């Protein structure tokens, strides 16, 4: 694994970019390829992939809070819910805004709620923060259950979809592949309209989700490699030392919390739009735990790790639906085993790898240098 990583890191930049682009193209094309084994039987694969992207998005957001800033948040689903409910209220329940207008409002509302929750609670110690956030997640759900204005248990339906481009038939039809016995054919019967968002047209949602995930990965990288990212990590490592090195730790913790809330709210709003219907049961505490598991399974602090974690957590249960009854059981077992065998997650942050690489380079250079001197003498 490390060897592959090292080889990749030492590739020239254009090659790296090309590989990334190919990977992205493959990701976009995935639902059209109808690959055997991977494609989920009995469930719309596009829909499954959309859910996977939402988990990935949430994992990226939660990773900022948990992985970078080291704040244990057990109530992340609360932000997801606020995003979803804001979108639902604005586009269906109390107003009829277009979705694209409601998403920014949803995201702003969620970010504000993150600040409001964080400002008083981020001063309490880590473990208390866990329980306070857990309480917050539950409060949000219970408020949704009990308040008529939020639809109570019945929930809210007819949430707006994103605007389709090119009307009901889309601009053009994209055929899927068909895997016969040893042959691969274009299946003109089975097509996806570009770009129509509908109940039965899940693939465009996946494309939308994937695009947002890619954008967030970029943003995450930019922020991580800056003063902000360093301040988060320093705070996580040793809050007092960070403060004494001039880091306003409280402000940065709040920033991490708000950023996490922002991403969570965005995911919630997109999710609400795809579902077209939400009720409080969509935001059980279980989901907070699943989100956290996605972050930890992949390796907290590593953005690709958490994306992989999200894929595992969201995809595997869908793929193996025949074991539906046992999925929580298996999932729990997996967590226990993983914790015992790979406490740092499947993919710990790659900095260690990079450091080792650089070490080697230096040694080689050093030897070369000494060699030259020896030759001269």
């Amino acid at each position, binding site marked *: 694994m490390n060897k592959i990583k090292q080889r990749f890191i030492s590739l020239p930049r254009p090659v790296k970019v090309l590989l990334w682009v190919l990977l992205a193209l493959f990701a976009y094309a995935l639902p059209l390829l109808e690959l055997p084994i991977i494609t989920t039987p009995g469930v719309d694969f596009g829909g499954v992939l959309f859910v996977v992207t939402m988990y990935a998005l949430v994992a990226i957001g939660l990773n900022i809070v948990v992985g970078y800033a080291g704040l244990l948040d057990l109530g992340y689903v609360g932000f997801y819910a606020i995003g979803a409910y804001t979108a639902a209220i604005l586009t269906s329940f109390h107003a009829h805004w277009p979705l694209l207008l409601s998403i920014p409002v949803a995201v702003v509302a969620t970010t504000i709620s993150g600040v409001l929750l964080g400002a008083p609670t981020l001063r309490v110690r880590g473990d208390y923060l866990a329980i306070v956030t857990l309480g917050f997640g539950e409060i949000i759900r219970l408020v949704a259950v009990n308040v008529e204005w939020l639809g109570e248990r019945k929930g809210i339906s007819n949430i707006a979809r994103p605007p389709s481009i090119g009307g009901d038939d889309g601009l053009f039809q994209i055929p899927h592949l068909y895997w016969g016995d040893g042959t691969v054919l274009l299946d003109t019967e089975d097509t996806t309209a570009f770009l129509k968002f509908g109940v039965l047209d899940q693939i465009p949602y996946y494309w939308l989700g994937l695009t947002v995930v890619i954008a967030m990965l970029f943003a995450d990288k930019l922020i991580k490699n800056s003063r902000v990212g360093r301040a988060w990590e320093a705070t996580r490592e040793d809050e007092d030392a960070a403060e004494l090195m001039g880091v306003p730790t409280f402000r940065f913790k709040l920033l991490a919390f708000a950023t996490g809330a922002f991403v969570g709210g965005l995911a919630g709003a997109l999710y609400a739009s795809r579902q077209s219907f939400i009720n409080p049961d969509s935001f059980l505490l279980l989901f907070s735990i699943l989100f956290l598991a996605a972050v930890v399974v992949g390796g907290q602090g590593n953005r690709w790790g958490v994306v992989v974690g999200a894929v595992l957590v969201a995809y595997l249960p869908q793929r193996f639906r025949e074991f539906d009854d*046992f999925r929580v059981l298996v999932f729990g077992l997996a*967590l226990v085993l993983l914790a*015992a065998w790979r406490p740092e997650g499947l993919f710990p942050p790659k900095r260690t790898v990079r450091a080792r690489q650089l070490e080697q380079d230096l040694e080689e250079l050093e030897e070369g240098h000494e060699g030259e001197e020896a030759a001269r003498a």
Partner: protein
Amino acid sequence: MNFDFLFSNLPQLTIGGLAFGAIYALIALGYTMVYGVLQLINFAHSEVFMYGTFAMLWTVMALGGADADGVQLIAILIAALFAAMMMSALIALLLERVAYRPLVKKNAPRLIALISAIGASFVLAELMGLRDRVTGWIGLDDDLSEYVGKARINNSMAGVVDAPRWEIGNVTLSSIDVIVIVAAVGMMVLLDQFVRRSRLGKGIRATAQDPETAALMGVNPTRTIQITFLIGGLMAGVAAFLYMLKIETTKYDVGFLLGVKAFTAAVLGGIGNLRGALLGGLVLGVAESWGSALFGTEWRHVVAFVLLVVILLFRPTGLLGESLGKARA
């Protein structure tokens, strides 16, 4: 807000709240002691409690509690209490062995230990929820259908214990509530004395304060941790027994909300602090009871969590502060 209702029923509401609070407090002990010694939120402690409720239920069913009364019923209940305590203690020890010891040995980060605890919690709850399937594989489901049926829904022992109600003036008191409060507080006092006075208790406190020095002084850390889990399990078993006396119904996921509440109680009183757990539990129970009278029962859980947040803001180390372990900066 319904102040009239609150004030006209204040005694009942308070007693009912105290009874619930006493159960929270007993469960909270498990959280607070493990946290004091390991700085770990034992997320799976809720399942320790849940298994206790089933042990109680099954014992009562197996011994024919539904048809018994008088001395016979009391004997059955004592057997059920014993069964609940044994079951909970067993699960707690199992948890320690399987989910925590490997991690403690590796010195894993605390977040990972929490994840392991969450995983163990899922496994335990799901095993109970899938018990019909599990027994089905070994062909026992017909023989045990009485016990393993209704795996995913409520299991009730209503009507087994017909407790008297006392009328004092215009106040009705449930004798069960009184028994629950007295028994729970009694257990807590015993435990408090045990931890303060006994050799084992001193070992626990020493390990909580400084594991390395305690180990150098001859306290076996592994054993101390085991005993901590054992005590937490026994107390959760008592809590399970009292809970079943009062509520009479259980389900595979009953532990979750109770566990969260109990942990809230532990934090409320000051985590790591035994007396804090008692106080936190009672305060939480009464606050919930009054709160649901004021705002309606649907707001009960919201009241509990809001209370927690408010108290932590003004007293960041809980009502009584942290005492089992060291004061950590």
